[in-house]
């Protein structure tokens, strides 16, 4: 389950949020109650083989043979798509799932695996981001009249809400994993404060922590706290290894980004953390990924994108016209000729460091499949150009500095 940046609950970290639905929040409902009771409806739907509307992102990923969140979460309970019936029959959770079904979806268990979004405190304004996820984007969007109001209220500054979460974690005897997201965690004092509370409660010995950083800052105290946990899964957000990364993850500096990437990887190697490069391929970066894949292979770390970009739709790689996709597909396929592991089975456990290379290969294949199969959405180019021009008017930069090969394409769309 997940607590989003507004403090609202969602049944899954990958679930597409229905903005019109009523979402209980940590200010009104305890996490245990939400897990046991409020998730009953979605549990019932799933055991009956229905795909709730919120699961559409995972449906799309599986359609393009990209391992989705559904497969990864099922794997944690021992269930695999490729031998589903037998692995489900063997799952330690089988009886619990059937018991919840008999109990109208209500579970007697407590959550073991949470994603907790600590809000939008962020010093980056990535071009694909929005105020919900970045306070800096909020300030910029308000200035540019993209939005009229911004809500920077942080639920993690509500001591009662944080206590409710910590109480629920303490009451969850089998709590195993907490994945923190939300803005730039390295600069968020709530992140350190919560980690310290978990350490003080002695939960650090049983909990594995996941977190992602945008590689803009470093905090020794945070590292000191993280190393006390049972295990750490670290995500390093980066789009490419050139100054285009600074344009996309504005206003980062690729020199600092690569320096911090090395520094985090050194800590990870020293303490046996699991590391991944977290990428969010867009229409702008999809053609610049190969050096990043080479970096991943030479450092034995995997790359992973949570999903194919759907929001904003005009940033999706599908916006590239088919003709411009061809050289990118050719480059990626050429890379695969050299690096393909020709593995017979697909990796579902994307955190296995022993198969990092295969994972990168599968990631590359998923982009090739996407570029080949996804219908041309170049009709969205005017929307893309309009957004870039608006942001550039505030930032004083130009996409053509980094992607001169798209000059005509963008000019035709109004650049």
């Amino acid at each position, binding site marked *: 389950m997940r607590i989003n940046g507004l403090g609202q609950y969602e049944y899954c970290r990958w679930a597409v949020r229905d903005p019109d639905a009523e979402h209980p929040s940590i200010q009104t409902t305890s996490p245990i109650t939400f897990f046991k009771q409020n998730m009953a409806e979605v549990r019932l739907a*799933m055991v*009956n083989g*229905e795909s709730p509307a919120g699961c559409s992102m995972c449906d799309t990923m599986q359609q393009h043979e990209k391992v989705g969140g559904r497969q990864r979460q099922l794997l*944690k309970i021992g269930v695999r798509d490729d031998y589903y019936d037998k692995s*489900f029959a*063997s799952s*330690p959770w089988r009886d619990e799932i059937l018991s919840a079904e008999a109990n109208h979806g209500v579970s007697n268990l407590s959550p073991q695996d949470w994603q907790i979004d600590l809000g939008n405190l962020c010093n980056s304004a990535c071009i694909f981001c929005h105020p919900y996820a970045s306070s800096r984007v909020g300030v910029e969007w308000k200035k540019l009249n993209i939005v009229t109001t911004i809500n920077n209220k942080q639920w993690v500054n509500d001591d009662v809400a944080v206590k409710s979460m910590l109480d629920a974690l303490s009451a969850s005897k089998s709590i195993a994993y907490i994945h923190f997201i939300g803005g730039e965690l390295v600069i968020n004092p709530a992140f350190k404060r919560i980690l310290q509370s978990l350490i003080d409660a002695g939960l650090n010995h049983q909990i594995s922590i996941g977190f992602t950083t945008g590689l803009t800052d470093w905090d020794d105290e945070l590292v000191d706290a993280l190393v006390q946990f049972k295990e750490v899964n670290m995500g390093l957000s980066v789009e490419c290894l050139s100054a285009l990364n600074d344009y996309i993850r504005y206003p980062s500096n690729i020199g600092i980004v690569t320096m911090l990437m090395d520094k985090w990887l050194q800590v990870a190697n020293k303490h046996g953390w699991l590391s991944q490069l977290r990428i969010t391929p867009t229409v702008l970066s999809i053609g610049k990924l190969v050096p990043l894949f080479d970096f991943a292979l030479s450092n034995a770390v995997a790359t992973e994108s949570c999903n194919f970009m759907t929001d904003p739709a005009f940033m999706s790689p599908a916006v590239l016209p088919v003709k411009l996709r061809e050289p990118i597909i050719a480059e990626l396929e050429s890379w695969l000729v050299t690096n393909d592991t020709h593995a017979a089975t697909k990796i579902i*456990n994307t*955190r296995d460091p022993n*198969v990092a290379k295969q994972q990168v290969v599968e990631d590359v294949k998923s982009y090739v499949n996407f570029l080949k199969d996804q219908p041309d959405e170049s009709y969205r180019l005017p929307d893309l150009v309009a957004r870039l021009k608006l942001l550039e008017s505030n930032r004083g930069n130009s996409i053509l500095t980094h992607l001169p090969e798209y000059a005509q394409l963008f000019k035709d769309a109004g650049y």
Partner: protein
Amino acid sequence: MHNYLKTLDTKQLLKAKIKFQPIFDNGLPHLEVECNGVHKYNNDLGHTLAIYINFGILEPFTLNIAMTGKKYSAEKETAIVIEEFVIDGFDVVPYLNQASYSNDQNYNGGTSNYLGFNGIWSFKINEPFYNWLHRNTGQGWLLTP
């Protein structure tokens, strides 16, 4: 989406196949095979032998193999090789380093599919096979309720 409720009639038995190949340059080895408490073979082995056993999907699995009758010689070998060991279509041979081997030469240098001493070679899966498979094929955590 899979329908969990439709899995309740999943076939509950898994099939294991173990195929033995004897080496008998210095006389036939005597082979005794017991699998999940069932004696499957007890005789001298002068030919390739395949045995099969069905066991429950949630049952543990134990294979005990006893070889006797070997006369040790520096020039001629007597041994038994597990040429094939498959459970429900999955090759188990790469995991036979998890076996234990009590033998008359007090050899404890690791186990494989090669049984070269008089003694008892045992391989155990102490949990449902698919949970064992999960743990042994790099599938990450297997959370329990």
